[in-house]
């Protein structure tokens, strides 16, 4: 694998080969690779589902799929993209990079780490199996409630709901195990001299994410368990006939669901400033301000959940509280935007693919944030709730803010992980195709939402036809452009120009002191940080 001379000889470099290497590995780099690969595969599975939806929405009327199947695609697309594509990608980076960044030989709990990963494929199968079962006449397909499982629909739904509930349980266990591992690693495994306030920002972002996961995933697990017992064991948590309350589910779900947004984004906010300082060739601006912003956002994220259902009925004082607390999140975010821009300010900037993605990310994520402020306004939300405006808003935060951020990270660290440079030209083409087609997909959806097109409906009024057509065509371009991404990654793994240890001229941090690719066991002797 590695052709570089390894400074520290290690006696465990031999490992099982073939499939057994991957099944039994406890090596953080192997597990990181598996997480990232799984994430990439599921990104395409979720993407294929949404292309089915966009194909149906290309024209008004019902052409390709029936409404039930359409609903199933919508819900499973979201669950896969959130739990099986974005979260594993962030966990993959955490596994790969956190030990390297803090000078640890491995994660603190390697066996747990292996188990955490291998829970993912079964849960992905659980999520998608009902589609296959339905083809053989068993059940009526996958979860058709949207990813939010709102009762009473989810209490009445078919076996797809049960499959999704168990999938969520498994995914929850997996991400909680990953989080515990990361917290323990960050607290106990840092190299001598690396204080908490000297940790790379990526590690900080993950620390907050991990605590949010430990605090909120059990609430989701509890809520879906209540749903399960309502469905099969005669309880009435959410069944109004038995004295339950469907709206309570929304509270429980979003108590998890809103922090989840920051769980997805905090790791990205962590490495984006590291990319910025690398390609601006000057130290990042406002490290402490950004760490404190992470804390502030982590704390605020658990007290704003009800803005997801302003229209479900709440007294006015509660509406006002949730509106103002939601808007307050924009303050620490504004601090971070300022730091990002100030890091670039008067820097000696160059625009390699990771930097292109990062700068594009700042702009697009900014649009996502600003449209979020519009939705946080109770009066405006009454109009825009459950419209395509919401869909466009959260794709600006989760596709641009999440996935494009992850892509920036992939291009940034790929030479370090593989030891080869990727194809720069292809990377740039990938960026421009992605950025342009992404905007062409979702800008029309803002207008559709403002005009009143509801989300999660397979048919629409004729007046929405043109914008939907643009959006569908652009969505296919967006989806197909991602094949370039895969091609670039695969060729980069197979070969290419050798990457230096530092890879990027302005790179800062411990991971760049190791050879590219790093040896199977790195930092067997702990480095010391001044």
């Amino acid at each position, binding site marked *: 694998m590695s052709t570089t001379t390894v400074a520290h000889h290690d006696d465990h470099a031999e490992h099982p080969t073939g499939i057994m290497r991957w099944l039994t590995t406890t090596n953080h780099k192997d597990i990181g690779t598996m997480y990232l690969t799984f994430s990439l595969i599921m990104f395409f599975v979720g993407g294929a589902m949404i292309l089915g939806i966009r194909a149906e929405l290309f024209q008004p009327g019902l052409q390709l799929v029936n409404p039930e199947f359409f609903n199933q695609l919508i819900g499973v697309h979201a669950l896969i993209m959130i739990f099986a594509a974005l979260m594993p990608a962030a966990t993959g980076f955490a596994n790969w990079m956190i030990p390297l960044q803090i000078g640890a030989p491995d994660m*603190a*709990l390697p066996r747990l780490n292996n188990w955490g990963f291998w829970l993912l494929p079964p849960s992905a199968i659980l999520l998608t199996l009902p589609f296959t079962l339905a083809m053989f006449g068993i059940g009526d397909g996958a979860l058709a409630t949207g990813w939010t499982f709102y009762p009473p629909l989810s209490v009445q739904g078919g076996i797809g709901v049960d499959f999704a509930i168990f999938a969520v349980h498994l995914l929850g266990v997996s991400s*909680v195990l990953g989080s*515990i591992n990361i*917290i*323990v690693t960050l*607290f*106990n*495994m840092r190299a001598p001299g690396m204080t908490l306030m000297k940790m790379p920002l990526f590690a900080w972002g993950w620390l907050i994410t991990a605590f949010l996961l*430990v*605090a*909120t*995933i*059990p*609430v989701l*697990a*509890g*809520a879906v368990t*209540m749903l399960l017992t309502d469905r099969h064991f*005669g309880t*009435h*948590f959410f*069944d*109004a*006939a*038995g*004295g339950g*309350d469907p*709206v*309570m589910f929304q*509270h*429980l779900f979003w*108590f998890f669901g809103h922090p989840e947004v920051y769980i997805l984004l905090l790791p990205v906010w962590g490495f984006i400033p590291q990319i910025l300082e690398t390609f601006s060739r000057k130290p990042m601006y406002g490290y402490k301000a950004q760490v404190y912003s992470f804390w502030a956002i982590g704390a605020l994220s658990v007290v704003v959940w009800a803005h997801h259902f302003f229209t479900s*009925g*709440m*007294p*006015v004082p*509660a509406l006002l509280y949730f509106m103002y607390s939601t808007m307050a999140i924009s303050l620490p975010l504004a601090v971070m935007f300022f730091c990002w821009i100030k890091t670039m300010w008067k820097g000696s900037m160059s625009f390699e693919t990771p930097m292109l993605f990062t700068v594009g990310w700042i702009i697009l994520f900014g649009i996502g944030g600003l449209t979020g402020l519009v939705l946080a306004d109770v009066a405006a939300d009454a109009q825009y709730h459950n419209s395509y405006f919401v869909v466009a808003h959260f794709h600006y935060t989760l596709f641009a803010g999440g996935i494009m951020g992850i892509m920036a990270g992939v291009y940034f660290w790929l030479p370090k992980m593989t030891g080869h440079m990727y194809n720069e030209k292809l990377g740039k083409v990938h960026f421009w195709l992605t950025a342009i087609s992404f905007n062409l997909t979702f800008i029309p959806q803002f207008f559709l939402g403002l005009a009143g097109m509801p989300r999660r409906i397979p048919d629409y009024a004729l007046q929405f036809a043109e914008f939907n057509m643009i959006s569908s065509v652009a969505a296919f371009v967006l989806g197909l452009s991602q094949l370039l991404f895969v091609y670039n990654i695969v060729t980069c793994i197979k070969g290419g120009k050798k990457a230096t240890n530092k890879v990027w001229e302005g790179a800062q941090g411990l991971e760049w002191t190791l050879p590219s690719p790093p040896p199977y066991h790195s930092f067997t002797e702990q480095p010391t940080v001044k």
Partner: protein
Amino acid sequence: MAKINDSETLSPKQQLDLKNKRLVRKLLWMLLGSLLFAFALVPIYDVLCEMTGLNGKTKNSAAVLAEAKVDNSRWVTVQFTTNVMPGLGWNFYPKQSSIKMHPGQIETVVFVAKNTTNQVVVGRAIPSITPGIAAANLKKIECFCFVNQALKPGEEKEMPLRFFVSPQLPVDVSDMTLSYAFFPSVDEGK
């Protein structure tokens, strides 16, 4: 259990393992705490709703008939709306769609339910009041919603509701809606 200050007897590797185990244990407690919190939210939510009238929840028992003074200086209009949930083959409607009354004044409104099926069906009415902020001010003295209602095939039954609006009703509330949803009874078999 070994303490961290046994450092002379433990190798650095063992020390680290011990430190890791301790932190994992703390995090597992945190996890358990969050899970219990999720289930604790259920009663917390119910109590909060009943206290604040959120979601139009009212006390599901008869109000004590206090000698409330009738406030002749103001009027309040109470509207009635009814729903029959899927699975219950009934017709269900109020005999009058709204009533204009003084706070403190006791009124009776009759609802009619008819079983359109050929079996005995047990149903249960769940009330909800808007605006939620005034939910606690609508006091039911006698209501068919407190207990299960059984109707024989084709039977039609008049169900009276005796209630008053408390004079403590916030001054800016002049209209209230009382909604009844009739559900198939869930504890029918018990």
